[in-house]
């Protein structure tokens, strides 16, 4: 029987904050309290100056396997996740082949288990091949354990098909997640439509392309009563519409990424493709709205949209480069550094709130109490560090934060009672 003790930290969960050691035995929390006996411990992890919180859950990562293993594998992405404090990640379906059959999602889950660094939760496609024409086998995929369905990378354009998807999904208890983008409004789009794109001579990616789909889908949720999750909201008007919809009691949840609350379209002034992302970086006013949405709970979760791309694919002109940026290893630090929010709210948006949306609230984002599964993150909210791309565990290097000083770093990550990150280093 192995016994692991996390000593000297401040426990922070949905019940509040208190000083205390955490004892873990056989994958579960065996004791929580002050000054526990560490003599019998096999491993003692120092948590002085740290918070001990439920493990983080990322609703939105691209692990690229199968299909684009040159950019990331499930193992390297899982390592980046563990180092970022995540004990569970939802893998987006835009792999090759896509997540539209049980065999593919089983493969993704198994690769995650093999890596053993975090729980990899495959999402399912809404439509076959993410092509937007034929419904994916929701019930089969749900029976194999898939909870969140999305065509991420593409929005579901056809309103009839989206209505059918919601109605069909209703009794299955799954959640459909929309990438809100009316494609007809973003043909060839490279960056946010505004003053910058006008000066730089680049095709604009208008806010209205996101907002029209948010508006449409709010009405479809009203019509069908089936819950829906909005991925990576990026505009002030989107936040406003979701706030109003929630106030009406509609079953809508939403996420926002760290880059959408930290970076503006002005980053594109040097035409560096590392700043190209979908949805695009927008304006200061949008950042303020995203922050306000996180602060008042309109936006439930911080999700990274971790999108690795091999270096050579970003060494091309901006319009030819694929959109996407790394996020897993910098999310906590950016949330702590940039959101003027109490730590408990930051952790809520990273842990138990996304855990509920991902359908894993039985094992992730649990209160830190005796008998609970030991999926935990130990982080120092005050540690200063600088983002160095070469030091990231991801197989790719496309972080937009190179050289940026930030505050807040994961020290240890515990997955099912096993320390997968110790003192900021992955153990496997």
């Amino acid at each position, binding site marked *: 029987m192995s016994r692991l003790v996390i000593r000297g930290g401040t426990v922070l969960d949905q019940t509040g904050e208190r000083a205390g050691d955490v004892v873990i035995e056989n994958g579960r929390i065996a004791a929580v309290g002050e000054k526990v006996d560490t003599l019998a411990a096999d491993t003692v992890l120092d948590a002085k100056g740290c918070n001990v919180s439920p493990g983080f859950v990322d609703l939105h990562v691209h692990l690229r396997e199968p299909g684009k293993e040159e950019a990331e594998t499930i193992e390297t992405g899982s390592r980046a996740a563990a180092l970022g404090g995540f004990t569970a990640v939802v893998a987006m379906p835009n792999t090759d082949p896509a997540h539209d059959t049980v065999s593919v999602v089983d493969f993704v889950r198994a690769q995650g288990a093999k890596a053993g660094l975090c729980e990899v939760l495959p999402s399912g496609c809404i439509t076959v091949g993410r092509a937007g024409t034929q419904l994916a086998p929701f019930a089969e995929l749900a029976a194999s354990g898939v909870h969140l369905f999305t065509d991420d990378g593409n929005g579901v354009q056809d309103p009839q098909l989206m209505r059918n998807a919601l109605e069909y999904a209703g009794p299955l208890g799954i959640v459909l997640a929309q990438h809100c983008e009316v494609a007809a409004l973003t043909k060839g789009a490279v960056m946010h439509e505004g003053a910058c794109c006008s000066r730089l001579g680049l095709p604009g990616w208008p806010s209205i392309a996101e907002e029209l789909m948010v508006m449409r889908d709010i009405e479809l949720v009203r019509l069908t009563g089936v819950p829906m999750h909005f991925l990576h909201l990026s505009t002030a008007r989107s936040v406003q519409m979701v706030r109003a919809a929630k106030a009406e009691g509609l079953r809508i949840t939403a996420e926002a990424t760290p880059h959408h609350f930290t970076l503006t379209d002005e980053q594109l002034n040097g035409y560096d493709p590392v700043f190209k992302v979908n949805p695009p970086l927008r304006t200061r006013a949008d950042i303020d709205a995203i922050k306000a949405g996180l602060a008042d709970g309109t936006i439930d979760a911080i999700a990274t949209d971790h999108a690795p791309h091999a270096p050579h694919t970003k060494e091309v*002109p901006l319009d030819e480069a694929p959109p996407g940026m790394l996020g897993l290893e910098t999310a906590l630090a950016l949330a702590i550094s940039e959101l003027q929010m109490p730590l408990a709210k930051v952790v809520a948006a990273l842990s138990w709130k996304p855990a509920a949306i991902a359908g894993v609230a039985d094992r992730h984002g649990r209160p830190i109490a005796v008998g609970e599964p030991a999926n935990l993150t130990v982080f120092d909210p005050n540690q200063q560090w600088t983002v160095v791309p070469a030091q990231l565990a991801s197989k790719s290097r496309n972080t937009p934060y190179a050289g940026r000083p930030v505050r807040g770093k994961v020290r240890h990550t515990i997955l099912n009672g096993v320390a997968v990150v110790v003192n900021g280093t992955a153990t496997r």
Partner: protein
Amino acid sequence: MKHLLAIDDLSADDIHRLLELTDHMVEINSRPIPKVPALRGKNVVSLFFEDSTRTRTSFDTAAKRLSADTMNFTVSSSSVSKGESLRDTIETIAAMGVDAFVVRHRSSGAPAMITRWTNASIINAGDGWHQHPTQALLDCYTIRTGLNRRDGFDGLHIAIVGDIRHSRVARSDVQAFAALGARVTLVAPPTLLPPSLQGWPVEVSHDLDSLLPDLDVLYLLRVQRERMDEALLPSLHEYSQLYGLTDARAARLAPHALVMHPGPMNRGVEMVADPGELPGSVILNQVTNGVAVRMAVLFWLLGSGSDLAEAS
């Protein structure tokens, strides 16, 4: 100054100096043997990812008149479709020993990206909808000589008419004309203007006819057929009705006013009148001045720093 990527890299003083240098180049070009050894031993590579015979030939002629060695690369397909990144392409050619790349690319920002991967000077010969700085300089030179305005464009009123949204010429000209003191009015239907004009030193009009008598320069841009497919215009015919230069409109211009066009012209669309019959047309002067301006730019970026007269 190492690169010429955009007009806003230049101060008004820089533009004036380049135009004065162009005067010297015009003089050289008027000699029986229009060639000087100023850039002997320098290797100037034209790297055209998009076809443009006229701009490439103009740069080529300019480099040769300064005795530089020249190489031409035309990369027909995009770098991505060949499986080679832009970086690979640049590093390979740079390894042959290059002093300057003259770059034309269909993607805005490509020349700016290229500066990261080579020590050579980069001259932007047109990138996407972004900039075409030597076009703006030759346009300034043409106005400067055509209206005898050596000291700047204060008090001049210039209208740029047409597809501003998709035009690198417009983006460059607006900055250059305004830097020299001109009042610039953009004339186009709203669908052919950029989504935002915040920070642009311009006025906007949708009514060409009311402006005509007040203009010192009427600058027409090419309007492309594909703008109808994108539903930005109902028809080229309708565009021509509203914004095309007809004989009737030409007659309403002031006698001294210049008519300009970056070429190639869309005859019967933006240019309905016969440009050969327009007294104010300086369209061919633009082409002639292009060689001298490009000589000035090459000498400015690659010259030894010694006086041109001495070098020649």
